[in-house]
């Protein structure tokens, strides 16, 4: 059992900053999405960040095409993770996915016995994977904002004062905004370049960083060296959407 992820141990030893959600009590009609479930399971499965980003994008794209009320959000989330592992050549074992998903939904329960319930779940994930691919026209390759963000941040590193760059976690916070934006289906509506810019912009605003050689009050012009087609109002719109993600987060006691 060495290569099987021990979900019980994960639960006991990991210190959490995030309170545990009881997913079964959530209402996904109010703007919160199963992306949180994907990220929680994905991190427990040691998936690469891009694998988890892929899974959440696949999930959002699927629900955009169908009537969401007809499908079990956790099944689609688990299948998206499974498919994303294949797409990103970062294969996640189906058995691990089942164990982790089951334990995340039913916190504190013992791992699923290999029995009818296990095999039904496995079959459901495999069938849902085929369903997702057909609904998405087998177009499951995703162009991520991450590589653009890395490139922009690299340039900013030389642009900002050394001291500022090293004292403020601009890169870290930008990356956090980017990951969290994957909770919102509106991420599908923007180009990866624009999303990357807006995550960085928000981080700069957050820390009140003024870029050298950019005039006061001219908050937009810094990114014109990277992207030519991002309008002022869209820049704000995307930043607002990113901030909105934190408003629909469910209350935890």
């Amino acid at each position, binding site marked *: 059992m060495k290569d099987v992820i021990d979900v019980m141990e994960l639960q006991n030893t990991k210190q959490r900053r995030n309170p545990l959600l009881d997913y079964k009590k959530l209402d996904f009609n109010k703007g919160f999405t199963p992306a949180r479930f994907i990220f929680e399971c994905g991190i427990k499965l040691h998936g690469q960040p891009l694998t988890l980003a892929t899974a959440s994008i696949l999930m959002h794209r699927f629900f955009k095409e169908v009537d969401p009320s007809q499908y079990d959000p956790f099944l689609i989330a688990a299948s998206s993770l499974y498919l994303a592992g294949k797409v990103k*050549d970062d294969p996640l074992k*189906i058995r691990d996915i089942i164990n982790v998903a089951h334990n995340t939904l039913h916190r504190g329960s013992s791992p699923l016995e290999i029995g009818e319930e296990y095999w039904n779940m496995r079959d459901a994930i495999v069938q849902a994977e085929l369903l997702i691919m057909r609904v998405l*026209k087998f177009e499951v390759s995703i162009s991520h904002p991450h590589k653009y963000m890395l490139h922009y941040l690299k340039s900013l590193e030389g642009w900002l004062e050394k001291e500022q760059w090293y004292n403020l976690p601009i890169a870290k916070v930008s990356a956090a905004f980017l990951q969290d934006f994957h909770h919102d289906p509106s991420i599908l509506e923007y180009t990866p370049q624009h999303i990357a810019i807006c995550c960085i912009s928000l981080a700069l605003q957050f820390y009140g960083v003024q870029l050298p050689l950019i005039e006061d009050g001219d908050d937009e012009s810094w990114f014109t060296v990277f992207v030519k087609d991002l309008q002022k109002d869209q820049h704000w719109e995307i930043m607002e959407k990113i901030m909105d993600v934190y408003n629909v987060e469910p209350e935890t006691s």
Partner: protein
Amino acid sequence: MQNNNARERTAYPQMMNNREKEKYIENYNFPYCDESAKYEKVAKIGQGTFGEVFKAKDRRNSQKFVAMKKVLMDNEKEGFPITALREIRILQLLKHENVVNLIEICRTKATQSNRYRSTFYLVFEFCEHDLAGLLSNVNVKFSLGEIKKVVQQLLNGLYYIHSNKILHRDMKAANVLITKNGVLKLADFGLARAFSTNKSGVPNRFTNRVVTLWYRPPELLLGERNYGPPVDLWGAGCIMAEMWTRSPIMQGNSEQQQLTLISQLCGSITPQVWPNVDTLELYRTMELPQQQKRKVKERLKPYMKDPYACDLLDKLLVLDPSKRADADTALNHDFFWTDPMPCDLGKMLASHTTSMFEFLAPPRRSTQMRHHSLPRPTTSTVQDGGYIDRVF
């Protein structure tokens, strides 16, 4: 948003009885994934470890033909095969005149007879011939200009896929398709993968169990796992020579014998001609013939005659992959820029109205570099669009 059948239903799947569920699955509408029944199978044109390939006719347009490659779902419990998904993603990325075009992916209707499990097909634009089939037919004669056109298109395709950071990893004459208009298409990306030039200094760990033995380059035979585009250019060299010899030039029956044949043609494999070859995993395990002189030009001259052709081949069949010509260098070779210039194949192919696929052809003689002289029987049963398919 698409208007799905599912949308219009009032009953949710979880509330249905079994019969209703079956009906639901059977009638589920996929707006972006048509039923394979839109095509009518005409003949089987390929069979391999990868599965079956069929020629099929579009039912709505009887002039339009496609090739359908069945996705082998050998491990049902693991879902869609990661290899097939990789092939699909690579084909969706590659759109080029000299790369086979993936039109769509189809599915069979889920019914009781297939236990409600659909079969999937990759649907490609149809190509009338493959190069192995053409070369095994003595009646098909290529002029020097036509050979240049074939090799040029082959290298063009490789240049494009390598620029897109894709390795083909299964170059061979049978995977080179040619349309009736003489347009060459690289096909079968079942073994292809993305590669990156390792900037981080961490060497790649690709599998070296790729490429059909006769076209496999020496670095793979010696166990290299950090390889790149040169593996495809070795194959291109083998195919180029085959345009004249008409059969594969090095037909080993084991990896050891393949290395022996390579050494006999390209000279001994030594650290002098190939620095650091002695660090490869199998360098000491394999028996490498010593004191062999390089005879590429000498051995191929009787077939190829054209000195530019011999020179280009000499630059492709280079032992050390770092010194092997890349696609761009090869395309700039004088071979393609001297008279006779590359010329269209369409006219020549128009005189052959039989589809030629290696799968349908009798086995090629395995004698090395011997002209293939057996006339092939042509038992044709299916006829359409002027082309006759040989059926076994």
